[in-house]
């Protein structure tokens, strides 16, 4: 399935380009995401927690930067993710194209998404909805990340276990002292969407969200999810 999204950042193309290639900085702009370098150069391990209503989905996976071409300002991120508690998987290749626009930068992300498991049968409707909504939130955080030159989040470089992925500008209600400082915040769609929004550049989020949204579709199709198992076997 192919999805296309775009967003604009009020920063020159060269700066935006540099930031987008720094996948650790990009991940910081994603609430709920945690990322660390993997064994290989250009490969990262990441986790993402997304919450929607009673559902929380934990994804674990890897992201790999590939086909980086500075002349055309294009780069791709290949993502493989798997549900921490469950069988769902998602694979995505997100191809990003940057272009100058009125002194700012427009980023067009084309995602080729493959979902396996029960989510596979779902259409693109809800996925596009939320992907577009979230892209705005990501762009906003990315913009402030670029403008701060990384200073805002430099101290929050996530390492194993003890780091909290600090967003560039955490929504007030996410800064709850709930005694769980050792866990990354969850991407609360409610909070994100309430403040207008959207992502999906960094593939972790994309995959997690798309899959999550597919789950919602699963529930929406029928009045009572009891009958959904009929669906699942199709």
């Amino acid at each position, binding site marked *: 399935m192919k999805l296309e999204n775009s967003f604009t950042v009020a920063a020159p193309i060269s700066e935006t380009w540099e930031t987008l290639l720094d996948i650790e900085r990009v991940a910081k702009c994603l609430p709920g995401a945690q990322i660390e370098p993997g064994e290989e150069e250009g490969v990262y391990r990441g986790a993402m927690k997304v919450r929607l209503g009673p559902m929380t989905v934990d994804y674990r996976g890897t992201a790999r930067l590939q086909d980086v071409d500075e002349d055309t300002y294009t780069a791709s991120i290949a993502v493989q993710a798997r549900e921490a508690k469950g069988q769902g998987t998602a694979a995505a290749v997100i191809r990003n194209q940057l272009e100058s626009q009125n002194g700012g930068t427009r980023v067009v992300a084309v995602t080729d998404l493959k979902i396996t498991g029960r989510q596979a049968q779902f259409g693109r409707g*809800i996925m596009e909805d939320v992907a577009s909504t979230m892209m705005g939130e990501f762009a906003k955080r990315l913009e402030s990340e670029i403008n701060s030159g990384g200073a805002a989040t430099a101290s929050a470089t996530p390492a194993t276990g003890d780091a909290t992925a600090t967003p560039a500008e955490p929504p007030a209600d996410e800064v709850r002292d709930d005694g769980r400082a050792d866990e990354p915040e969850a991407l609360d769609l409610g909070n994100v*969407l309430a403040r207008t929004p959207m992502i999906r550049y960094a593939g972790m989020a994309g995959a997690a969200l798309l899959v999550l949204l597919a789950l*919602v579709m699963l*529930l929406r199709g*029928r009045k009572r*999810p*009891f009958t959904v198992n009929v669906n699942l076997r199709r």
Partner: protein
Amino acid sequence: MKPPRFAYHDPRGVDEALALLAEHGDEGKVLAGGQSLVPLLNFRLAHPDHLIDLNRIGALAGIRRADGKLRIKAMTRQSTLEASALVRENWPLITDALGFVAHAQIRNRGTVGGSVAHADPAAELPVVFTVLDASVRVASTRGERTIASSDLFVTHLTTTIEPDEMLVEIEVPPVAPGTGHAFTEFARRHGDFALGGAAALVTVDEEGVCRRAAVGLLAAAPTPVRAPEAEQMLVGERIDEAAAARAAKRAVADIQPTGDIHGSAEYRKDLVEVMARRAIVAAVERAGNGAGARGG
């Protein structure tokens, strides 16, 4: 299909429930009628560490009228609300809409507060309460607050109720005399979530001129939505089929329904328009016949 492991709590009073929520809200979930949450658990789509069951708190159920307002406690079963003579006489839109909520057995268990807090945009009660300008009272150990329905719904399955808060009561203001109501929806099978629907309240004066209109759309957006421009178009008109059709067209002009395997976005938009037109026409007819609410 068994749920993942969770700690089960069955508080006997509101204070006890709120204390549990304060402690476990972030990793816990409130269980009301369980008609959505339990399937979610059994499919392992939801895996809260704590489940706080409100079914043993008698003080959380009941329907009454106070200061002209209908007050529905959160754990009131949908079937109880449907059978209420007080509601049928004064807020018949609620009674009509409940007939579309799933099936009788589900309404016997499903609660009014549960449906609202679950916030599915294709569910009937959230749209109806939005059209009625209802508000909800939520409580936590930090205190109580009231949220207008216009500020309640954020997106699919998400409300502005905080994890440590609990919906305790829904307050519905009285409906003006001379108001006609209608609820329509279309689903492929009876009891399924609707592909589209609408609720309308139209108040007409003695000359048959519309004085106030409220139109709400079901499954038209990630939340229940009103159609304020369409409502404005109806006010001051003697509403006939053509006026209703114009307003319905305006009502869906800005919506972008979510398409899925059950119906494309375009199809849903057309469907919601038809539903809105029928709801407006039916509401006007009832208002004209004096068959609607006689006011509270």
